[in-house]
């Protein structure tokens, strides 16, 4: 039964991809930003599906049981706050710019040759680390619930999402995101009802959970406070520069729709997470003993086996795969647009026709997808740390030049380039060379990037900055027809 449901789900994804392919017809505007006319309802569910990854749902109960409520509360709260920050600080200028990608913004604002190469390359590297982690999660689900071999599950899931992204582009990803977002939300609500019934009331369930997992009721912190601060700051800042989220801002029909979608998506996400924190976690803690929980990421699946019928277990598996695949597909779009649009079209072959760019994007999707699947066959043990690090790298490198570029007119190209490079380098040194508390490395990279951008920009006299700006506006347009 579970296998039938999951296979039906895969077939739906590919069919939707084919329908989107018939609409895209070789147009880059359709392929990369779905024609730039997505409404608020559609974008809200799509934003939700992009953010709610396998980590958000699968790791929820197990992480809480192992580390207590506070650590996951910090990282989870960072995302809704990050969406609010993005809606206030970046949504309006980015949507009005009328481009396709994050590198488009940096190119339009700064016009730096270094950035033109660096931004897409960093995006591809960070997105691939993220995708590998998601693929590993997909294979764990299939292995636990469906009994599939790890590598079989990996290739089936991997090829399915590569197929629907490559044939239908962003439109396909969006249509599938709506379906996946609604499926995830329905699953969590249904699972929450079943879990509440199974634990026989909150007080009883919470008492049983804290008896099995004392960390759950511990008021103290299980790690350094800087791990909590770092987890929160990473997501609060990274959302504004996460490429698969920002592409949705570009695809919104107008600025107001983009902002309403960002906030609506987060309220739905918060509702899902609170059900996870307050109902599913204590239910899992009461139903599973600490000796049984050898892998914290499998706690949700173990609870599913204990309290749900085979039919609903299949729905849970499909919803968890939806969480993984929607995020993965968005990241794959970020990679293919970085390669096809930002590197191939803008640097290597500026005169390339739209159909050729779409074909390069298709090829890039397959190459990146297959590389990620191959890497996920033997995933390094530190994969989750690496994936969080990838997001923090994006925040350390891009957040300061992005926000200062929009809101501080004195920001210069030299300042932004120096800030971007220094943020990335300091983050990497902190991540690889020092044994710092988990997720706290961003607390070094991000301030460094802000300070360097600020200081280097100030080093250029204000009059010179104003002259540059005036002469740039006065010269003939380079981007006519955007």
């Amino acid at each position, binding site marked *: 039964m579970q296998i039938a449901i999951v296979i039906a789900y895969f077939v739906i994804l590919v069919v939707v991809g084919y329908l989107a392919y018939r609409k895209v017809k070789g147009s880059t*505007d359709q392929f990369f930003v779905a024609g730039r006319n997505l409404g608020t309802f559609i974008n809200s569910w799509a934003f939700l599906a992009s953010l709610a990854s396998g980590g958000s749902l699968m790791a929820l109960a197990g992480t809480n049981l192992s580390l*207590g*409520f506070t650590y996951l*509360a910090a990282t*989870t*709260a960072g*995302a*809704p*706050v990050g*969406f*609010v*920050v993005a*809606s*206030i*600080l970046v949504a*309006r*200028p980015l949507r*009005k*710019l009328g481009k396709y990608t994050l590198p488009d913004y940096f*190119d*339009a*604002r700064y*016009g730096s*040759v270094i950035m033109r190469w660096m931004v897409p390359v960093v995006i591809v590297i960070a997105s691939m680390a993220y995708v590998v982690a998601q693929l590993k999660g997909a294979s764990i689900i299939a292995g636990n619930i469906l009994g599939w071999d790890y590598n079989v599950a990996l290739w089936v899931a991997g090829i399915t999402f590569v197929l629907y992204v490559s044939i239908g582009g962003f439109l396909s990803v969006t249509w599938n995101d709506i379906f996946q977002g609604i499926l995830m939300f329905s699953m969590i609500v249904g699972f929450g009802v079943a879990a509440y019934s199974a634990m026989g009331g909150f007080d009883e369930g919470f008492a049983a959970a*804290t008896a099995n997992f004392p960390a759950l*009721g*511990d*008021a*103290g912190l299980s790690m350094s*406070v800087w791990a909590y*601060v770092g987890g*929160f700051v990473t997501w*609060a800042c990274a959302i504004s520069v996460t490429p698969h989220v920002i592409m949705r801002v570009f695809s919104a029909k*107008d*600025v*107001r729709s983009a*902002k309403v979608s*960002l*906030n*609506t998506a*987060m*309220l739905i996400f*918060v509702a899902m*997470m609170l059900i996870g*924190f307050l109902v599913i976690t204590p239910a899992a803690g009461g139903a599973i003993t600490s000796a049984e929980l050898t892998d914290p990421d499998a706690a949700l699946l173990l609870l599913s086996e204990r309290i749900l019928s085979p039919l609903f277990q299949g729905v849970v598996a499909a919803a968890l795969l939806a969480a993984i695949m929607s995020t993965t597909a968005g990241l794959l779009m970020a990679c293919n647009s970085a390669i096809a649009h930002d590197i191939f079209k*803008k640097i290597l072959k*500026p005169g390339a026709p739209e159909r050729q760019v779409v074909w390069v994007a298709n090829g890039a999707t397959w190459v990146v997808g297959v590389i990620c699947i191959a890497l996920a066959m033997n995933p390094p043990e530190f994969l989750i740390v690496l994936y969080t690090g990838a997001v923090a790298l994006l925040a350390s490198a891009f957040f300061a030049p992005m926000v200062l570029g*929009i*809101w501080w*007119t004195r920001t210069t190209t030299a300042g932004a380039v120096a800030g971007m490079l220094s943020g990335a380098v300091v983050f990497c040194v902190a991540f690889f060379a020092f044994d710092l508390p988990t997720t706290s490395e961003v607390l070094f990279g991000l301030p460094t990037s802000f300070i360097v951008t600020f200081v280097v920009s100030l080093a250029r006299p204000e009059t010179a900055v104003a002259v*540059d*700006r005036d002469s*740039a*506006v006065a010269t003939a*347009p*380079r*981007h*006519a*027809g*955007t």
Partner: protein
Amino acid sequence: MSVPPPGSSGPDPTYATATGRSDVTMPRGELALLIAIVIFSVVTFLPITHNVSLFGIPLMAWMLWALMVIAPAVGLVLSLRSGKE
């Protein structure tokens, strides 16, 4: 959409007008929300919250949950009140 020639440098001349950067302003409500988020976040992570629990759950977790509900809720109200652009 045309693109700049390879190797060209300098900001896009259409950028200032396309984004309204030269006169970009933040509504007072949004500015207040950002400041409130920063203050609330700082207070949440202060040592005074580290060893306190409420109904068996750490105070810091309660505060973070409150923040993740209130921030998008207020953000949504502000977005709905803003005009179309």
